[in-house]
């Protein structure tokens, strides 16, 4: 086509200008640095959103903290103590300033500093989330590899059914079924509670089995699907045939050559699941009565505890953003081709 119609319009066409203006940082470190810079405005929007949530709460936090029939002086004193006499933007700045140092204020309902509460509960949710990711990674990869190796044959079909079931089953249903079967019927595992590993490692592990199994099903199924698709594609490529022709066994071909290339897209999907874990912990900690961050969030929401809601929303979003950054970096480390274009 001879006439370049409209090609000067639109954001896509201005990209070359953007890149020319940006200083060129080379390599992985430069990419991370650039990403970190673009994160700043996003984190600011997130913090404003988290802070504003509490402004939408009906009722006055000052009267909420005082109990029934407070006097006007008490209300005024409480408002002053909570800084409510100042305008919202001023409060936002001081809130953010403290939040950056880890000071999220004091819970309106319990009177406890949010930070202490977070420290006490972090281990519970971290145990659940950590083992869930581990189990999902192992299980998802295994299923995906088996599916790809037996592509379109019986094992693949059976596992495909299992995977699509895993993507459809509600985690709260799965949790209740596991409790009904393994805790109530068989009595093998505890139905509720949490024991810290410093008290008893065995009890700690026992209390984690059902919550972890519950949460791992969805990400494992998702990962299996990704790995299968990626691996089936990679296994059809020339270099795999070359590796086979050189006499490498199937384990080495898949493990060393194919999986590395198939894993990269799977990693991205997996990174997105951190948000799922944090939301899923709300449900799992409710069903299994565990004193973690999810239970803390749910309690804050039912009690309309503004300070805690603000803190939890902010922390969750920051974790998700940082994990996404980490995943992108890992993706680039695995796949150098992306570095050039990003």
């Amino acid at each position, binding site marked *: *086509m*001879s*006439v370049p*119609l*409209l090609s000067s*319009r*639109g*954001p*896509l066409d201005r990209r070359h200008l953007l890149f020319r203006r940006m200083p060129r940082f080379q390599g992985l470190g430069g990419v991370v640095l650039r990403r970190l810079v673009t994160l700043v*405005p*996003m984190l600011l*929007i*997130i913090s404003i*959103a988290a802070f504003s*949530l*509490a402004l*939408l*709460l*009906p009722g006055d936090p000052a009267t909420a903290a005082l109990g029934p029939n407070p006097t006007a002086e008490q209300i005024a004193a409480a408002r002053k103590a909570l800084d409510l006499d100042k305008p919202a933007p001023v409060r936002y700045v001081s809130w953010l300033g403290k939040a950056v140092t880890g000071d999220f204020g004091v819970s309106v309902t319990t009177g406890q500093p949010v930070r202490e509460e977070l420290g006490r509960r972090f281990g519970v949710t971290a145990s659940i989330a950590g083992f869930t990711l581990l189990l999902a990674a192992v299980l998802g990869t295994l299923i995906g590899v088996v599916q790809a190796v037996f592509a379109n044959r019986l094992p693949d079909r059976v596992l495909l059914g299992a995977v*699509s*079931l895993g*993507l*459809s*089953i*509600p*985690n*709260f*249903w799965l949790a*209740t*079924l596991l*409790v*009904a*079967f393994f805790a*109530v019927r068989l009595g093998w595992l505890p139905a509720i509670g949490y024991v810290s590993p410093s008290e008893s490692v065995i009890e700690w592990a026992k209390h984690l089995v059902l919550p972890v199994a519950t949460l791992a099903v969805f990400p494992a199924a998702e990962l299996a699907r990704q790995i299968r698709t990626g691996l089936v594609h990679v296994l059809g490529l020339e270099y795999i045939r070359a590796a086979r022709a050189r006499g490498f066994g199937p384990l080495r071909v898949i493990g060393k050559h194919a999986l590395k290339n198939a894993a990269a897209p799977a990693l991205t999907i997996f990174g997105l699941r951190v*948000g*799922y874990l*944090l*939301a*899923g912990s*709300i*449900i799992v900690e*409710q*069903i299994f009565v565990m004193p973690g961050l999810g239970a803390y*969030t*749910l309690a*804050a*929401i*039912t009690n*309309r505890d503004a300070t805690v*809601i603000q803190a939890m*929303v902010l922390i*969750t*979003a920051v974790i*998700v*953003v940082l994990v*996404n950054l980490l995943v992108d970096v890992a993706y680039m480390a695995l796949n150098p081709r992306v570095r050039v274009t990003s």
Partner: protein
Amino acid sequence: MSVASIGVPAIASRPAGSALRRTWRRYRHDRMAMTALIAITMVLLAGLLAGVLAPYDPTAVTPDVLAGPSSAHLLGSDDIGRDLLSRVLYGTRFSLLASLVAVAASTAVGSAVGLVSGYLGGRVDTVLMRLTDALLAFPGLLVAIAIVGILGPGVQNAMLGLSIAFAPAFIRLVRGQVLAIREEPFIEAATVSGVGGPTIVRRHIVPNIAGPVIVQALSTMGLALLAEGALSFLGLSVQPPASSLGSLLGRGFAVVNETVRLILVPGLVITICCWSFNAIADGLRESLLAESEA
């Protein structure tokens, strides 16, 4: 090639009915997707006809407390003697309706914002995308739970929360599609022929992005059923005496020591619905992909 010879866009001149029919023909041969379509049709009908099919009033208390399945109660009764089949039928109607409203709202709003953002570009696009990215940083269910927490438990707030949680995915999808399509020659041709912006969006962009949006809406239905179920389960959505599948499950879990029947049935219905929507979305995606490659 001269500008004038591009003329009427090739895509618009293809009869719409035949593309639809070809897609349907491909879809029909996908056994899994057809099974799902039949399954969801049956569940939808059961929900719609709950008033006719249910043997009892879903809130009517009978003397048969925790009765097993019998000819009087096909699925048995719950812990205060209400007929489980009737409760599940009404619960199914409620869950499907709530999810449908949430998905319809997020599809409409998300697509509109995505269209504007992608078509206008420039500063509007930058601002909208920054906000969307920020919203995407919050896990969907957490957004919904936080909104419900602030506005108070209830179905309307739950649906609002879910719509806001699901909208960013549609914004991103539609914007991406629009960006890709606006570079196509037929859009340029329409522009130089003097067709106005709104007409281009309506006549040339919307029909070309409808497929992916419908697929996304269907798979979001699966997610919405899970999320609405979770909210109901936590007591943040539907309030008694009305009930959805999630709240039935939550109530049934309270008597899990007595029987698993009360959690088995509602959970199974949610799983069937969710699986069906996922399978239909997958089947349709494949069929549309084949159509665009043909």
